[in-house]
């Protein structure tokens, strides 16, 4: 075997992806900050087990700053580690508040934002790619120091192989990422400026696909809300009902509610779909939403603190003043446990399969340790793609 053979094997192993089913297996990665070594190992093995070959990565948020008088980046993620390294493909996602377009003045605003965002994305993508290459190179390991006969020669060879792999990856990934996604809850009032921005962005990123997230409302009322001038859409099949409403039983996903939005004509854009795997408790006081408590199972607080209320909705009455993190829950408050049951998830996936044809990618929102609970359901959905 020539000396190039192991390098080629490594390169293919980093570039190759084989998913079960027809579509791409994807997740949203919405976290910031660095991961511990244990978290990296857990994420890698979970990604392998689920056959995840793509991530939508939250790069940054954009909001309007009154003080600056222009849109500003509010959150930018760090790339020291990312589970996408195990999946190899990714799409940067930028969330832009609707009020950014509401407050934007003049015709130059959309193009100005597109220019700034393009520059920012270029810098961030280069940074992420560099991290990806370094991470890949680190997988070529040094031998055990105690057993190496000529350590300096061996280490020089290892470094050479690492450099070669990095160079090969750089050459092969010039087109990465192939897609940029914009996430925005546009309204009829902000539509024109938003769409103008999307056109400007498309013009500044030739050769890249531009996709947008599409909530179910603009999906159904496409005439009123317009169809974004981009290459693709991603239909978000969650957050169907107003979480602020105390009468809502599950704001995240109910199949009956989902059906109400589907069934019309084919959407003018090719679509991918996203399903929820998150859980929260909607905390209400006297009918008013106080906040969302992520990954909280109210039943686990124990009967000293909560009592399950009668009825089909998973609601719990706080019976004793309780501090959870920085929140002070008072007796009488109500926690509505909202999670998506596996059978609901499967039914929703089946419905989307039949009602939204030609889906290239099924994504789940979002990547966190608790998705391990959904592992078999997710695998089943992927197999059915």
């Amino acid at each position: 075997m020539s000396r190039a053979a192991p390098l080629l094997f490594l390169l293919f192993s980093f570039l190759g992806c084989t998913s079960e089913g027809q579509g791409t297996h994807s997740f949203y990665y919405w976290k910031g900050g660095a991961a511990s070594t244990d978290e990296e190992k857990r994420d890698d093995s979970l990604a392998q087990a689920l056959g995840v070959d793509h991530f939508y990565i939250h790069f940054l948020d954009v909001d309007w700053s009154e003080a600056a008088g222009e849109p500003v980046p509010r959150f930018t993620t760090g790339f020291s580690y990312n589970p996408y390294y195990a999946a190899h493909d990714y799409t940067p996602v930028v969330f832009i508040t609707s009020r950014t377009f509401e407050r934007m003045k003049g015709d130059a605003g959309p193009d100005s934002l597109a220019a700034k965002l393009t520059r920012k994305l270029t810098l961030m993508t280069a940074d992420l790619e560099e991290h990806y290459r370094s991470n890949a190179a680190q997988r070529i390991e040094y031998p055990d120091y105690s057993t190496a006969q000529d350590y300096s020669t061996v280490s020089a060879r290892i470094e050479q192989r690492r450099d070669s792999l990095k160079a090969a990856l750089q050459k092969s990934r010039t087109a990465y990422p192939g897609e940029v996604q914009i996430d925005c809850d546009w309204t009829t009032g902000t539509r024109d400026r938003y769409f103008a921005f999307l056109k400007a962005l498309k013009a500044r990123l030739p050769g890249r696909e531009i996709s947008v997230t599409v909530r179910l409302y603009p999906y159904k009322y496409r005439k009123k809300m317009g169809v974004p001038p981009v290459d693709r859409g991603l239909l978000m099949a969650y957050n169907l009902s107003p979480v602020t409403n105390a009468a809502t039983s599950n704001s995240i996903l109910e199949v009956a509610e989902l059906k109400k939005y589907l069934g019309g004509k084919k959407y003018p854009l090719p679509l991918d779909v996203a399903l929820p795997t998150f859980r929260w408790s909607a905390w209400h006081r006297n009918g008013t939403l106080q906040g969302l408590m992520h990954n909280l199972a109210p039943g686990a607080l124990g009967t000293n603190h909560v009592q399950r209320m009668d009825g089909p909705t998973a609601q719990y009455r706080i019976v004793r003043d309780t501090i959870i993190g920085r929140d002070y829950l008072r007796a009488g408050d109500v926690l509505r446990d909202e999670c998506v049951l596996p059978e609901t998830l499967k039914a929703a996936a089946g419905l989307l399969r039949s009602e939204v044809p030609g889906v290239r990618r099924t994504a789940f929102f979002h990547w966190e340790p608790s998705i391990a609970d959904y592992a078999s359901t997710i695998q089943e959905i992927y197999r059915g793609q």
Partner: protein
Amino acid sequence: MLLPYTAGWSCGPILGIDEARFDLFRPNNAGSSPLEPFYYTEAFLNGGTPDPEGKDNARNCAEWQAITGTGVSAADIYTIQYTTAPDDFLRGYNTGQWEALEKNSFVQWLRQPAHQNAARYLALAKRAEWTQTESTDPWGEGRLPSADLQALAHEAEAGYYNEKDLFLKTRYAFQAVKMWYYAGYHTGAPDSPRLMRINTLYDSALLGRPTIVAGWAALYHGMVQKDSIAHVRSIVRAFDLSEEKKVFAFQQLSRDDLEALLRVETDPKLRLAAIAMKGANTVGPALDDLKVLAIADSQSKYLPLLAGREVAKIEDWLLSPEALGFESALRTNAFYQTRNWDGSHAYDTIYTYYANLRRSKDRAYAAELRNFLEAHAVRSGPHHTYLLLAAAHLYSIEGDFKNAQKILASIPEPTTRALKIQWLIDLAVAEMHLLNVRTPQAQKALLARISALEELGLRPYDRLSSWSDEHNDAKTETGDDLSEILLLLSRRFQKAGDVVRASLLYTKAGLTTNHYDSFSWDENDTSVSYASIAYLDRVGEPADVDSLVRFKRDMERSAFDAYLAPAHWAPDAFYHDLKGTMLFRKGRYREALAVFEAMPDDFWETTYAYRDYLPRTSIASVGTLQPGSSVAKVHPVTSKEALLREMVGVQDSIAIARTPSVKARWMLKWAHAQYNTSYYGKAWMLFNYGNSSRETGSGWYESEEHWAYFTGEPSQRYAARYYYLRDAIAAYRETLRLASRDKETAATALLMLAHCDALVHSEPKGKKPLPAGVYYAYQPRNGEEKYVSPYLTMLRKMYAGTALYQQASATCPDVAVD
């Protein structure tokens, strides 16, 4: 190796901030929280936050409320001013959509057409705030902040010139000064036009105005002045007029800067502030500054700060070494620095001379300060009680408790909590020295003082919570006050001959002193801990242990005794073990054995760390030190009683042995037992409760500087036997004398004598004093000959034919070759 510990300090304990300082004059007596950062503490300027009570912010809100009227709540003004992000305010201002702020009464006031100018000003102020908290180049385009800052400065300046309302006009001027300062800050030194703008705005709109923004502006104004006096003057003004700028202002100026200002400054208020800053910047005596301040303004707000600092200094210099055994941290550090010695561990042999010299100097200084405070108190108005308390405290430090009590008696019971605590502290200290603490009346009176202090919130020291508060100057300084009283009281009982109560008080105080009291916190929470007997072990006698056990069993204790009693007593056997150990050290072996025999058989197997550090081999086995020696376990359980019974048996056998040879063999066993129960032997726990590798070779146990190594206390009193092997060597020599016809026994004795001699030779007393900085077991240095014991030479010459020598020389190269 320090025993036993569950959360020990492997490198010795680390002292928390101010833990090595004795300070019973509470720094916060003056009651002025913005001056907290300037208290005389180890945390000086390094902990806490400037203006911890937010007095400047409250004053700003109050100034706004004077404009809005009380229909607008101060809390709502505070919310908008200090907890609302600039963008959130500006969004409401620009769009009219105030969302969560809709119901804020200040917002509602600002939204009224009549108040649109105020709203416009606040919008500018929030934009200025934004430049301080957010990046002015959010997209990383290389945009310099100075452009935004200059634009804001121009806008604020225009606001100043256009605004008619004086309140808003002044604030626009402040914003302009601040923005011009920061615009210059980002581009280097301010250019002349910018300096001129700042000076014009400051002089015409802010200087001398009774508003908090004038105090804040003084700092920005001062920071850009090119003239050194103008620079110092304005920063001193900022120190005086603003609370939150005090620390920053203080850090900008040296004593020389302040002295230069004082040579030319005529403004009395500025002079006072400069003197106060200079005094607070003095780590040595600052009575001169205090006097100048008092002459200039006998009721100055800075008077308590400077007076309190001087009392605290004297207390630290005199009482930290005396009561805690620590030298003043501040002074010790300064001492080492001035000598430029390498490493802070160097032991200075002439240190004691200087310590005594400075002690008498400090006592003279205490008297001088006290005379001044007493004389000045009558003129000090609101500070009268404070200064009298300081004078009384100084009398106590000087040991003149009668005069201390006399002053305290002249002070009516203070009405403020802080001063009342100080008054009670000094009463307690004076009374414990003037009364016979052994009498029930005195104990009752002292308990009343302690109870009164506890009612005011004082508690015995809690090291763990104290550490978590280590950046809170006031708490670290005052969190151990009740314990410091208990420690002083312990010393009084010790002096009065009541070791039991002295011991209980010392333990209850729980302070870290320069002694080994066990290096573990967890251990102290259990009933069987060395901490509970450390004091008694150090200073007590066997009879004191009996008294302690009687005290423990007494069910009809007085209230005072009930206060002293620990929450959890150790079992009686633990105290009996201490008594037996004390007797053992004294060589009263049969009495010690009688004590051990009365104890439960499994005590040493199941309690403390005895099982780990007492052998189950024979007390007369030195193991591998003697070739062929048995290392078999002969005792079924760990037991001091069994080991001591063996020793007593050996003593008896020596007494009845009829021939020199038989006697020699028993004497060898006795010598081995003596060796084993020395510092170097495997049964050292018969003698001591702890053992550290740092005890030998350094003379630590002969020095004053114990910290942080286990000092061998109380074994230092028995150093001849424990460290210098006096009894073991004597017994080996006697063995040698008796074994003239038993060559194997004689050879064994010589081998052990050589070993003991080498050990002792490494000790300072066995050889010349160690060079400074050498603290490990002595090793020959380059060019220095290795020490060879004459006993070893004798062994080689006279007993080379013995089996003992053959085996020893085969297994130990040192025996065979020089």
